[in-house]
């Protein structure tokens, strides 16, 4: 184990996989000479050369489409999106092509392409640069959706993404890039898809989340423990597709109360899907309706005070936990 930032964990995962497998390459806007907008790819062009570290034009459909073609021929391209907001430009390539070609070919090709990049609220990036996309992509069969909350998971899940046979949307939280945590040193350390983890044990309320909101939920859980004596069990989903809710069901069976936390818009969001599944599966265990903590249903404003109002914070998680505790004996 050594302490590493979320950013370095991502970079290390890519470089270890590039060292391990010559079929792995990376492409994106300003990832080579410029060394990446978030410096995730610093040093990579020098080490691997221009054939494996490809600076592309600003052309997201082109980047993703060519990567899908490479993947169909046996390469393992990683596409870095400067931010995931730009990936919508390539929606046709992701949703109509990457996600479908295995199926309509009757299983004749693998499509091992990883599309990764930061998403979520930053600091005053306004409406086009602050969105989250997990529920959008997780709606579609044929792709995997990953949203790590820790440096160790960022590394282990990215390695699983690169080694896999399917298209992966790898959603990084820009706000977590600087976060540090213990990361295993073993180059063969991976984290499997579809295995949620208990990030904090507790007996009173289950909180289900992922990515940055998981970290925020942990802070809220500590405050609740200290200030109110309420012990929350916090579940980190890690991947949204495949989605493993078994630990959440088991936890709710113990706590009988549940709060789901996501960063952005409530309508048709990930929290709705998770809450519905919990209600369908362990309805008889629930002592209160599943609560959702989400962002406001607005485009992201520029002004800092308004921006802070648009996203959920610890106090919203704390309020939701107290709400589901309303009839606590």
């Amino acid at each position, binding site marked *: 184990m050594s302490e590493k930032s979320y950013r370095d964990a991502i970079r290390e995962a890519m470089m270890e996989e590039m060292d391990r497998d010559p079929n792995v390459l990376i492409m994106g806007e300003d990832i080579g000479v410029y060394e990446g907008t978030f410096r995730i790819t610093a040093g990579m062009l020098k080490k691997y050369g221009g054939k494996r570290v490809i600076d592309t034009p600003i052309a997201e*459909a082109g980047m993703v*489409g060519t990567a899908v073609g490479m993947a169909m*021929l046996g390469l393992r391209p990683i596409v870095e999106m400067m931010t995931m907001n730009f990936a919508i430009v390539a929606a*046709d390539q992701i949703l109509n092509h990457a996600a479908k070609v295995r199926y*309509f070919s009757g299983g*004749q090709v693998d499509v091992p392409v990883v599309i990764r990049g930061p998403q979520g609220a930053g600091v005053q990036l306004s409406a086009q640069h602050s969105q989250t996309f997990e529920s959008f992509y997780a709606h579609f069969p044929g792709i995997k959706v990953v949203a790590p909350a820790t440096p160790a998971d960022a590394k282990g899940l990215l390695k699983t993404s690169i080694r896999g046979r399917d298209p992966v949307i790898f959603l990084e939280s820009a706000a977590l890039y600087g976060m540090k945590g213990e990361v295993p040193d073993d180059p063969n350390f991976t984290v499997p898809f579809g295995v949620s983890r208990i990030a904090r044990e507790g007996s009173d309320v289950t909180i289900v989340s992922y990515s940055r909101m998981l970290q925020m939920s942990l802070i809220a859980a500590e405050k609740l423990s200290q200030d109110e004596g309420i012990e929350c069990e916090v579940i980190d989903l890690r991947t949204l597709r495949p989605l493993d809710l078994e630990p959440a069901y088991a936890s709710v069976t113990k706590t009988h109360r549940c709060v789901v936390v996501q960063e952005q818009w409530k309508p048709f969001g990930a929290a709705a899907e998770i809450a519905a599944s919990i209600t369908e599966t362990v309805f008889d265990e629930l002592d209160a309706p599943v609560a959702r903590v989400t962002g406001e249903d607005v485009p992201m404003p520029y002004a800092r005070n308004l921006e802070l109002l648009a996203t959920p914070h610890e106090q919203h998680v704390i309020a939701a936990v107290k709400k589901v505790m309303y009839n606590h004996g």
Partner: protein
Amino acid sequence: MAKTKEQASATIDPAAACAPEWTEILRQMILIRRFEEATEREFRKGKIGGYLHVYSGQEAVASGIITALTKGDILFTGYRDHAHALALGSEPRRVMAELFGKSTGVSKGKGGSMHLFDVEHGFYGGYGIVGGHLTLAAGAAYALRYQQTERVAVCYFGDGAMNIGSFHEAMNMAGLWGKDGMCPILFIIENNGYAMGTSVERHSALTDLAQRVRAYNIQTEKVDGQDVFAVRGVADRVVRQMRETGKPYCIEAITYRFSGHGAADILQPYRSKDEVEEHRHRDPIGILRNRLGEICGLTDGDVKSIEEWATSEVAAAVQFAEESAPPEAEELWRDIVAEHGPARENE
């Protein structure tokens, strides 16, 4: 359509023109025509569902290019894709079975007419979103070079695909990668004059389509797409060149489709019957047959026996498709992802 000055014309060397291969190409083109006629019949009978886009009239564009390829080369195209599969060597009965939605189809009955796929024969798919596959093909070409092979990729698309963003992004990246010899892709514009029902004059600000490709630093040439000698002549030269240089190339084949855009395009209000009739005088099969007759002594009897062979091949394909089983229910959930497939909703 009259040949323009820029279009390559075939120079005919009788020895080369009479090589047995040309009779094989004639057989292939006649087979494709009979196959397409059968698909239209079976569509009307309700045996083929969904959308059906047939290739009749354009056969020289598929056969002239694809017969110049060798094993290992790969091909991407749009949804008017039956001819490409047949020319690459897919079994007619498995292509027909795909159209019938049967388990014996090339894509196990899960793709249909628009998504034929036969990797064993180098066919990486028919695609249903206009222009979407161009980027895939450019990336595939990069992969062939990355893997240090001399294989080439061929990417067909219609004139209608040239106005969508992915066309420009694919062309630019191919042109860019071609500078480093990393993109051996042959783009084929199947310019049949219409994007569905919108003529080139009405959909493209510049009607010289090849010129638009040259803007991306890609060499181009136009060819009479009804003359398989001309198409094949260009293809032989260009494919050889691409294997060496790793650079992209684009051929604009001026052609014409005799049938409607799709099987539902019956009225065809965008063109007159006279226009279609006029183009039928330049039937690519007729042009090849006449030339083989004039120069090589191919007789009406020879042609008749090819016709009979093709008719019986297609009849056998239809019978095979008819008699094949539909996919088993389990197929619904297969091939979505390699691992972590979906939960079942309705047991």
